[in-house]
């Protein structure tokens, strides 16, 4: 079996599920080693994903595709395949899972509970990989909903005080969004092309839905579900509660990966399937995105609970991602896809570090953790600062690249939104630096003297994330190469052309026969510029 014909994605989807079953049903003998098994398993999955990625060609096509008929009566197929955006998200999921398992090593003293948690994480990994690989709307929807169940239990059964309420709130918000989307999914079937491939994304792209109002309603039903998931203002309120009550490891997966399903869905479903409605809704969505940026940042400033604060910063960051998606330029589109990866790395690391802090200080209240912790735990302070600055999008770190591209790309189409959003960066600096100041700076405190610094395991959890942020910050080309072609394709599917510099626009209107070729060169170079900025 060659590299091309090997069912990579199916194996990647199935492997964590098998691991989850082994850990969950393994009985007490196996459960004592549940952590080791689960961690080892997830590392193998990561290795597999990396091997798969080496065979990926950055030409914008859907690769590693497989398709089997599943429910032919409804036109449902088991169809998987990834382009650059899907692949980076699959890799991100595969990377974060072992780190989360490693970070939670000592969280559950009871081996049965630890096994239960590990099984849930692996089960979630299956759904995460599958949802980013899905090429069938129905299959995507199934996973979108089924993912709720492990997360619901991860929050409710393992969270701190208030976890029950937070879990139910999370479930109800997501279910409500999901059922709104179900109406859209049903409409895709009843007013779509039907037939045995009636739900394949590829057969729906460019489909004429017949009526504008139907298309707009379908777009809205999908978008509402994704906005709840992402979470965008004003349907974001479940996230801070969930993040505050859940274990930080759960939040890493919840915010780092799961919420990306929302923005991923916007990129892969909303824009290509409903281009007319996308254009129609874009002004409102852009406004909501800008509001999210500031609303999240303002509320982050006002939090004393560290997990709540990180959750609100994410609301702000998701505002940037959505802004990039709905700016319809390939630079912004690349920026948004890249932002999804970087936000996973940065916020994931921030949640993990917050978890280490909480484990040491026994409180989630930032004002009670410090001050002056930096004197006794320099490593913790240093990593927190680096990771925190990545949330501020400091140049040299990968988040800068993506945020900059989103802003530049947005400026090409909607200058006002870009200018206003750029102010959000300042607020980001505020909430992170104030948090750092509260916890770490200040004179040495005697009662903090015996607070241990990061140990080896904890360093190994954070190091890969920081390393990746630095690598992509200094040399983003490999990632951007993957994301470039899908981004251009998305913009085209949404019915837009790359905006051109004014000079070229003028040339195009001039009756010069050579202008056409110059403009083609200009288009190519402007998208190239986007790729290398």
């Amino acid at each position, binding site marked *: 079996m060659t590299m091309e014909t090997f069912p990579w994605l199916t194996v990647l989807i199935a492997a964590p599920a098998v691991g989850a079953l082994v850990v969950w049903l393994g009985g007490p003998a196996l459960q004592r080693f549940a952590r080791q098994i689960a961690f080892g398993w997830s590392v193998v999955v990561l290795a597999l994903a990396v091997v798969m990625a080496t065979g990926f060609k950055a030409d914008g096509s859907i690769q590693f595709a497989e398709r089997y*008929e*599943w*429910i*032919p*009566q*409804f036109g449902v197929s088991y169809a998987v395949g990834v382009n650059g955006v899907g692949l980076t998200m699959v890799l991100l999921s595969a990377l974060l899972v072992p780190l989360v398992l490693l970070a939670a090593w000592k969280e559950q003293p009871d081996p049965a509970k630890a096994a239960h948690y590990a099984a849930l994480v692996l089960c979630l990994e299956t759904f995460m990989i599958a949802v980013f690989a899905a090429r069938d709307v129905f299959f995507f*929807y*199934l*996973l979108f*909903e*089924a993912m*709720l*169940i492990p997360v*619901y*239990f991860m929050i*409710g*059964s393992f969270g701190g005080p208030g*976890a*029950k309420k937070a*879990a*139910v709130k999370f*479930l*109800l918000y997501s*279910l*409500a969004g999901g*059922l*709104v989307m*179900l*109406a859209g*999914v*049903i*409409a895709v*079937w*009843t007013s779509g092309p039907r037939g045995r491939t009636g739900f394949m994304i590829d057969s729906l792209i460019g489909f004429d839905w017949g009526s504008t109002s139907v298309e707009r309603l379908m777009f809205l039903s999908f978008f509402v579900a994704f906005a709840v998931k992402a979470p965008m203002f004003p349907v974001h309120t479940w996230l801070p509660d969930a993040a505050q009550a859940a274990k930080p490891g759960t939040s890493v997966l919840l915010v780092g990966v799961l919420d990306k399903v929302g923005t991923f869905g916007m990129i892969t479903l909303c824009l290509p399937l409903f281009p007319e409605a996308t254009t129609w809704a874009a002004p409102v969505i852009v406004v909501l995105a800008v509001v999210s940026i500031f609303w999240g940042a303002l509320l982050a400033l006002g939090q004393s609970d560290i997990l709540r604060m990180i959750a609100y910063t994410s609301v702000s960051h998701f505002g940037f991602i959505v802004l990039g998606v709905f700016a319809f330029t390939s630079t912004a589109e690349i920026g948004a896809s890249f932002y999804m990866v970087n936000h996973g790395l940065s916020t994931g690391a921030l949640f993990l570090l917050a978890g280490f802090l909480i484990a040491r200080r026994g409180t989630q209240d930032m004002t009670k953790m410090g001050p002056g912790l930096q004197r006794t735990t320099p490593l913790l302070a240093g990593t927190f600062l680096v990771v925190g600055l990545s949330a501020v999008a400091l140049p040299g770190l990968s988040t800068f690249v993506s945020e900059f591209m989103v802003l530049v790309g947005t400026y090409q189409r909607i200058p006002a939104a870009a200018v206003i959003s750029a102010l959000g960066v300042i607020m980001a600096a505020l909430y992170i630096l104030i948090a750092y100041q509260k916890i770490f700076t200040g004179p040495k405190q005697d009662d903090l003297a015996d607070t241990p610094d990061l140990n080896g395991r904890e360093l190994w959890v954070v190091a890969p994330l920081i390393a990746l942020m630095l690598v992509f910050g200094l040399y983003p080309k490999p990632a951007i190469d993957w994301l470039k072609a899908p981004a251009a394709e998305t913009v085209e599917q949404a019915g837009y052309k790359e905006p051109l510099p004014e000079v070229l626009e003028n040339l195009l209107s001039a009756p010069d026969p050579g202008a056409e070729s110059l403009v083609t060169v200009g288009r190519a170079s402007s998208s190239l510029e986007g790729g290398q900025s």
Partner: protein
Amino acid sequence: MSVLAAPEIHIEWSALAPVLIVLGAAVVATLVEAFVPRQARRLVQVPLALLSVAAAGLVALQLALTASSSTTAAAQGNLAVDPMALYLQLAIAACSLLGLLVIADRTVQGEDAFAPQASAVPASEYEEQVRRAGWTQTDVFPLVLFAVGGMMLFPAATDLITLFVSLEVLSLPLYLLTGMARHRRLLSQEASLKYFLLGALASAFFLFGAAWVYGATGTLNLYVIQISVSSVTGLSPILVVGAVLILVGLLFKVGAVPFHAWTPDVYQGAPTVVTGFMAACTKIAAFGALLRVIYAMVPGLEWSLEPVLWTVAILTMVVGTVVGLVQKDVKRLLAYSAIAHAGFILVGVTAYSLEGLSGSLFYLFTYGISTVGAFGVLSLVREVDSDGHMRGEATGLDQWRGLGRRSPLLAGCFAIFLLSFAGIPLTSGFVAKFAVFGAAFGSGAAALGIVGLACSAAAAFFYARVIQVMFFDSPPDEEVRLTTVGPGIGVRTLGFTQIAIAVSLALTLVLGIVPGWFLSFTEELSSLLMLTR
């Protein structure tokens, strides 16, 4: 030969075999009660009941597989042996078989769910003596068999009088069975009386309606009515009144609002094992009859009946969901959930299309199977007094706190049934909902579909609450325990219930994950049926 020359009556014995087997076994079982010594009765009754229902199911399956598009009218045109009848008979046989397993189960102390002597006055000296003597009321089995026989006839009947007779054959044993609970006998007897009185009222409505229809058309045969209805120009008010009254009688059995008042009380008062059987099988049978009546009458009376059906469907979904939200008793909660589900199925029925019919048939089977399983779990959660003796069932939601910790497997099974009721993907409930709502969207009843989706979202809340209570709350004090000894499987009964739960769980998951084969089955049946119309 004979002096009295009776008209020659032709009965298609082989086509009626499923019904005849069950009713024959019921008669034999009655004789067993009379002639077999008390100690041996159970030993005879249980295998007799199980085998006869299984045999009936197998025969129905055999007939269904060889069924052709031509409807076989049997028993002088009083019964139809068409694909739908056979399919529903098969579904009823399957659900009753599982239900019978639960009914036949008893604890290791030899207590089943029924009063030792139903005729004994509650809390009387005689009752105590009988209990001490360890008598059991084995009349349960012939009663169940009669009910099953009636249920199998009900969806096959094509004549209003036959419909009425089978309605009574299935109802009378259920009234009795409802009053036979071992624990909380007064509640049980009250429920029985209520069920009987309201049921008699509904029967009267039905009969009255049949009389009106006869007056309008001069016939009781549904096919002839169908022809005369469609040939009449201008609506006959007499016919409309008759049709509405007949529908009232049937909607009562289905448990649709506003004819649902009996449901919660009867579900709660009846022995749980009977509730499960009744909830699943009555719903299948009554919907079968309803489908037949509607499909016979609606073509001609569409404009008069559709508003009625729409109103009932919407009311049923909304009332079932909203009132269900505030229930504190698991059995009552499931009763309101049953009402809401009746509304969801009505959406498929009202869609009045191939997809609608196929979806309703699928929904009926999967809902029935999950219901038997869910009530099976319910019957295993018991109160235990300080001496370790089993008392009544623990159905208060408070008593279920922490069930997931003490008995993870049992609670896990129940959670999956609830998720299926809530319509979460990868369970059969989701596929069923998709099928009926999709049919509604596709046939111009989108409003019904949207109400259905909204209600599903709201109903998810009360299912989630039970899951929350089971898994996230800590267990109550020791006064209420389960009959659990092992890690969740070792409930101390004969194990029949566990088998039934396992089978229905497997079917719930299989039909949720790979529903294609079954959907093609129901679709094929529906297309055969639509052809013959």
